[in-house]
């Protein structure tokens, strides 16, 4: 191997992940940069649309963070959208994450995820079936999806359209006997059609990270403390700020609308929103729009 960091692990070697051995059409071997997932730890794949909504971003970050805090490893495809977002969030929360690529292991695709690639190498690993230097090709991605699902205990779908690459991964997971969970969404939202369909077909419903932790056996049934995103955590907020928070949502809301609903003066409102932003309760999504931060 030209680069010492890259190892090739043959399917016959002991080190080869057990989870990959039992699946239909297992890879003959894998290239690894960094380390392999810890077999003693639970693993969840978080996947979803590349064209995620702001809401989807928040949900992905929230699930990835909470799961990481409970020692779960996050596996995904390092793609644009939900994949990359959940991996970044998991790493930021101090967890570990593994990227499964549909190209050579030394090729960063998409290129804007270079920073993520580097952090994953530090705190996890990159895995690919394909030899180093191989450029990304559309036909390779469905193949790599079977490795994503195989490495996980649970496959979690955040946002997906009816027809998408996500459905391929889901099919693989079912063939491999992995549990599939989906985050439900509005019936009018095209980005939730895929998820809602999965639920209709019998997938688990993920309304909070606790649902996943419960299914993984990390918390006891009925002891789910992660049931709700509660406002109670905002302990040191003023009356005004609480009122503003009440009108905010996980979808972006225009400042004019907030002003109208709360009845506050624009300049006052800007100050309070800034304070909330500094406290990490809200976030600016585009100019003049505010969004509630999910994982507070």
């Amino acid at each position, binding site marked *: 191997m030209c680069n010492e960091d890259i190892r090739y692990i043959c399917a016959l070697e002991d080190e080869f992940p057990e989870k990959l051995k039992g699946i239909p059409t297992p890879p003959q071997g894998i290239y690894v940069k960094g380390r392999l997932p810890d077999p003693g730890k639970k693993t969840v794949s978080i996947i979803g649309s590349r064209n995620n909504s702001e809401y989807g971003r928040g949900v992905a970050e929230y699930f990835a963070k909470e799961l990481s805090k409970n020692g779960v490893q996050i596996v995904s495809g390092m793609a644009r959208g939900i994949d990359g977002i959940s991996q970044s969030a998991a790493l930021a929360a101090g967890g570990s994450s593994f990227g499964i690529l549909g190209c050579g292991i030394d090729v960063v695709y998409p290129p804007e995820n270079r920073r993520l690639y580097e952090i994953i190498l530090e705190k996890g690993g990159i895995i690919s079936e394909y030899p180093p230097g191989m450029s990304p090709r559309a036909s390779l991605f469905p193949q790599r999806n079977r490795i994503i699902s195989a490495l996980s205990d649970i496959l979690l779908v955040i946002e997906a359209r009816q027809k998408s690459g996500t459905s391929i991964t889901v099919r693989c997971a079912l063939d491999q006997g992995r549990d599939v969970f989906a985050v439900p969404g509005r019936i009018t*939202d095209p980005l939730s059609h895929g998820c809602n369909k999965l639920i209709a077909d019998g997938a688990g419903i993920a309304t909070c990270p606790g649902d996943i932790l419960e299914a993984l056996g990390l918390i006891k049934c009925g002891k789910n403390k992660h049931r709700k995103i509660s406002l109670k955590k905002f302990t040191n907020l003023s009356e005004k700020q609480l009122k503003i928070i009440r009108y905010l949502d996980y979808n972006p809301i225009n400042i004019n609308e907030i002003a109208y609903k709360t009845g506050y003066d624009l300049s006052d409102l800007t100050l309070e929103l800034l304070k909330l932003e500094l406290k990490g309760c809200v976030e600016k999504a585009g100019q003049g729009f505010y969004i509630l931060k999910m994982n507070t």
Partner: protein
Amino acid sequence: MFSSVHSLALHGLEVREVSVEADIAEGGLPVFEMVGFLGSEIKESKDRIRTALRNCGFYLPPKRITVNLSPADMRKTGSHFDLPVAVSLLRSMGIITESTDDTVFAGELSLSGKISKVTGILPMAIKAHELNYKRFIVPKENAAEGGAVDGIEVIGVSDIDEVIRFLNKDIVIDPRRIDVEELINTKKLYSADFSEIKGQKAARRAIEVAASGMHNILLTGPPGGGKSMMAKCIPSILPDLTKDECMEITGIHSIAGILGSEGLVTKRPFISPHHTVSRQALSGGGGIPKPGDVSLAHRGVLFLDEFPEFARSTIEILRQPMEDREIHISRASGNYTFPANFLLAAAMNPCKCGYYPDKKCTCSETSIKKYLSGISGPILDRIDIVCNVEGLSFEDLNSDETSGEDSATIRGRVTDTFEIQKKRFKDMRINFNSEMSTKDIRVFCELGEKEEELFKESFEILNLSARGYHRILRCARTIADMDHSDRISCVHLSEAIGYRSAYRGLWNV
């Protein structure tokens, strides 16, 4: 017989004296020759003048006629030399008998002998007055423009015959006088007024802040939200022009040849080039450059709609004028400096489909990033205020809710803020908060303890850059001024921070 009359030549924004000499000599073959480093429009004037004179009943004699425009080493362009050449010939022919030593001429001839309008009359009139001429004979249509200059008689004429009779003292024409102050103070109709805009509280406020401190502003928002409409309102809330400003702007517009029939520019200009505009059209161009859009927008608003659609190289041209408030153009014929002190208002959609961050948006994060990266960092750096103009719903449009204040009320407040700044920068080279250098910011934008703390925290958590630091302070100073407050408070500061350009990860500067 030899004769000489006076005229003026335009050289960029500068006006130079030119004397037009004509000589009609006996002997040799009959020719009509014009010399003196002439542009082709002047060389062609030979035929115009000969025909115009004949149609007025004066035949050029079949002799050796030579016309020289001196100084001969300066290239001359423009069609306004027709009249001085014709007058010079008529004097040589003995038809005009009175002296024209204290008179300057400018005007273009048509074949019928009528005198049609030309460009650059106002700067010429100013120069003629400086050179102590008593009279300036101009086309009738340009008389109003020239009449704005005190101390020189500006006479508007409509044809050659009138000129001859006037110079020979057969008739009297009263000089045209324009009272600039009165013209400025008369009520003006702006193309758009803030009273026509419903809702949009946040955007209205942002525009008022921008106008008060002459901060450059970028309006983002979905299509049809009224970005262009709001931008059009900006001139209507800027303070009225002073007499000096009026003369300055009129001079530039006169040279560019875009002066309307009213003769003077009494409203702040609003220049809105299409996004296909060439670099030369924006900066000013030509062999002897004419002012471009940045100069035409001097003391007014330069509005660039669909900002990311402009060629990048075109937008980058704005960097120097936005910094220096003037533009330097170098050509083979020399170096030219045109004033370019404008308020830049730009408008754009937040993404390709136009609806981000609304749920209607169909763009991926990548395509949004790609779209936004069309605006370069250095240009964003020079824009102090970024503000969203939201889309309106049917209810908004249909509501009976009284529309907001009208422009005149807002203009009153903006004028007050202008005064405060004038006082502050009394002995300095700058006029507005937006022009403060980092040194000035240290002096004029001192923060209290509480504000310092808020700013420091924002800086760290919101990941602001050093460039952002100064922009926020400049803007906060204006907001405090609007409040008639000497010190910048937390409310002022937070509003300024709210105007920073923030699109997740990309524009956080």
